[in-house]
């Protein structure tokens, strides 16, 4: 515990502690899963930290709108933590927040491709308090541009422009957004790894642990999906994944690309993960099980960051991931309840998944 770390992260730590205590308790999760219907879910959420985001007239609070409102909480959390975190950790938090902007950019491009209206596109986006590039007018101008070429032209001078412009050649050849989206994803994740590498000492170690695990999960799942679902060749799988990782190394990705047994590779990376065996079968549901196991691994890693020395960038990073997963799980519950799906069907998704450690 260095004096520098304590000085830099004192306010961050206190702020995260206060936020952490507001994560939903297991009691609330149980009640949410067992809630009779969507209205009961809203009532329960009305007693949580999300209450102020859901203070809208009931007819306006459709399930989609409720999810959108919950996401404002995450936007506020990022805003708060970015404000109190000192550099260079602050930059990493900003870079991490950018992944919502990348998602919004992809959603906007999909909307344009599908000929959606501005309002339809807006409903698909994450709310952003801190939009670096995709401000409301930029999105509006992109949608009004009417086609992908001109929409990308609107982004001239931004960090997305060179990547998208270069990938545009393939978009024209293949008439698919796939190359644009993959290029954006790879470029974003490379930037995030660079941002992690700019940190030093304990900050670097903790950022690597906290962000390395979810980045690994993405890379691994991409490689498996490209092979199992898209049936891409080894060279394509390698080019569409990253050689950067924390536990998942390039050798593992190349092994998957070159046709080795996927379950064996996963076991080699995560010996203690409850991963299924049928990962090579597109219809077997093994990949969904693996995704859940990886999510639990990410949540466990984030929770473990709160043990021990708390004065480093890992603490706010771990908290935003926990909050992200909390909102993802709430989204599942809201959609399930709104569609009147029985808890028996989706409760399994939440078994053993505990977001908070139930203590301060």
């Amino acid at each position, binding site marked *: 515990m260095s004096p520098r770390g304590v000085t830099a992260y*004192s306010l961050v730590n206190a702020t995260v502690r206060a936020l952490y*205590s507001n994560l939903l308790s297991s*009691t609330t999760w149980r009640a949410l899963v067992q809630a009779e219907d969507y209205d*009961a879910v809203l009532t329960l959420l009305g007693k949580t930290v999300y209450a102020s985001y859901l203070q809208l007239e009931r007819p306006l609070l459709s399930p989609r709108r409720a999810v959108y409102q919950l996401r404002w909480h995450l936007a506020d959390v990022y805003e708060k933590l970015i404000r109190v975190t000192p550099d260079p950790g602050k930059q990493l938090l900003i870079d991490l927040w950018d992944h919502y902007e990348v998602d919004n950019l992809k959603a906007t491009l999909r909307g344009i491709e599908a000929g959606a209206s501005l*309002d339809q596109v807006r409903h698909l986006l994450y709310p952003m308090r801190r939009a670096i590039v995709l401000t409301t007018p930029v999105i509006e101008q992109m949608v009004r541009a009417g086609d992908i070429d001109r929409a990308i032209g609107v982004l001239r001078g931004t960090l997305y422009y060179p990547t998208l412009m270069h990938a545009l050649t393939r978009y024209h050849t293949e008439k698919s957004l796939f190359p644009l989206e993959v290029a954006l994803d790879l470029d974003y994740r490379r930037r995030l790894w660079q941002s992690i590498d700019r940190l030093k000492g304990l900050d670097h170690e903790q950022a690597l642990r906290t962000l390395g695990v979810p980045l690994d999960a993405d890379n691994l799942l991409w490689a498996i999906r490209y092979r199992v679902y898209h049936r891409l060749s080894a*060279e394509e799988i*390698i*080019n569409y994944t990253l050689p950067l990782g924390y536990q998942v190394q390039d050798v593992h990705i190349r092994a998957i690309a070159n046709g080795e047994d996927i379950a064996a590779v996963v076991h080699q990376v995560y010996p203690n993960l409850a991963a299924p065996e049928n990962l090579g079968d597109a219809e077997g549901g093994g990949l969904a099980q693996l995704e859940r196991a990886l999510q639990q691994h990410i949540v466990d890693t984030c929770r473990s960051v709160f043990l021990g020395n708390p004065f480093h960038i890992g603490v706010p990073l771990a908290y935003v991931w926990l909050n992200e997963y909390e909102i993802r799980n709430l989204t599942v519950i809201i959609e399930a309840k709104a569609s009147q799906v029985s808890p028996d069907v989706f409760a399994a998704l939440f078994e053993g998944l505990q977001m908070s450690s139930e203590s301060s």
Partner: protein
Amino acid sequence: MFRSQTMRKVDLIVPEGDVVAVTEALAASNVFHLARSRGYAASAGIGSRTPWQDYTTAFFELEQRVLAVMQALGADEGHAPQEGVHLLVPSVARRDIERLEREAEEPSRDLEMARQKLAKLEKYLEQIQLIADLDVRVEMLRQAQFLFVLPGTIPLANIDRLRVSLEHVPIVLTTLSRDEHVATVILFGVRRDADVLTRAARSAYLNPIVAPEVYTGTPADVIKALEASIARTRAQIATAETTLQQLYDMRVRHLRHLLWRIRASHSLVEAIGGYEHLRFTYIISGWTPASEAASLRRKVLEVSSQAIIEVEEPGRLDPVSPPVVLNNPFALRSFEGLVTNYGYPSYTELDPTPLLALTFPLIFGLMFGDVGHGLLLMLAGLLLASRRLRPLQSLSSIGGILIGCGATSMGFGFLYGSLFGFEDVLKPLWLQPLEEITSILLAAVAVGIGVLTLGMLYHILNAALARAWGNMLCDHSGISGMVFYWSLLGLVAGAFMPDFPISPVVLAILAILSGLVVTFSEVFIHLIHRRRPLIAGGVGTYLMQAFFELFETVISFLSNTLSYVRMGAFAVAHGALSLVVFIIAEIISPGKGIGYWLDVVLGNLFVIGFEGMIVAIQTLRLEYYEFFSKFFAGGGERYSPFSLFSKEDGL
């Protein structure tokens, strides 16, 4: 103090013809906070579209076009004008911009095309120079039967990945040149591997360069032809640049002026687009500090004699809460930052800053009691607050906090008899934490109980002010919760003190009754406020939830109270750490020479810096987690007056 600066709700009914002038006056007044929906409605475009929203888009487009002209001329934006700016008519601005675009279009298009052409020619030249000595005609290479040749551009980050993806295939990948993002490469392989090579190149985003077939002959012939083309293209670029520079000299001031007028107009129409529009009038809603209401009325009437202005106190049931201006005396303002970092108090809520300003230094001082250390902290606080040291001016806001914490540290220093760690210079007025550990721990818990009770009282008062009688009576931080908490404390105290004045039976009855109210608070609150249904969802779910909530309440009472033990523990640790400094000093210099005193000075500085920081964090943690969670919701909005040059980037 305690309450936000008093705000007034301002509703203006403005004739259609005056809406622009009134909006300009509101922006110029710099005291009008526009009431807006919370992002979603605006961003989702709910409601009918008005011409003003089209103007908003138009001005955004115009701004982009002006910026594009400025970029073409290499002009910067300059600064926002200080004097008032009035609304532009989009069609007039558009004509102006079109003229500017026309002027800049031809030379900038020529320049752009010439640059693109030059880049391509240079790339071809680079490629061909690699095989300059070959005595083979290039058209034969294009049609090679056994060789796979693919020149192209590829993102820099993908080059290594492409090599890895082709590790089992014989290839040569040569980089010809590279810029910030992209490299020009040639991929050589064997024609029989063409499928694999093509797939790998495509997935690595290698965009092929197709050299124009007009260039024929040996590489030497092609180089000669390319060099001639490059020279001609450079001359074209120079001509275009000169034309653009002349245009820059003539138009830069006008462009900057136009840009800022467009930006101001954009803010203006964006604001108007958010107003409610009736047939011939607009309704503008917002807030202003009560002290500014009269002058705001005067300024609006100066530009619109027909405007109707209603200024009223905010209603309790208004769906939108007024923005908040914290209203604390100068001495307490340092603590505002700690409060707003947690959340902005809502308008009806009591501002917890005064309470924080009282409890924060108290808790800090209890943990860090030393006259000398407190004095140094206070001096450091005075230095920061005075803003005399330029490099530390940004820290001036924490000066007040250091002064407060330093003063209480000194106070507790006298109570503990501690001066720079020396425990034998001052006579303790109360106790020495290291000597009476149990007493200091019990005292810490007592202070914690006091602070928690204060939090509950604050919650009760907040609920009373908001006339939320049900919450005031039944919440776990309301009256029932407080009775429940104190009954449990009484039962615990009675178990250890045979002479406790209140009978355990009475306490048990109080605990059961208040516990039941807390458990079924939702039902009681709905009953008091006449809300139906009493229970949302099923009875079974509710009972299970109520039981767990009671369980959580008891656990949180216990953990919140015991959390304050750490105050005593830190007071002990502070004494122990100081003791360690002296033990080390004795080892270094038993005769109390210079080494002894050097160690004492450095040790004290370490204690102040390192332990002081940890104590501050613990204090903040106790305030945020144990204290604020009892009464402070923090869902308020900061008062932010409408201005023409403010930028909002939220969706």
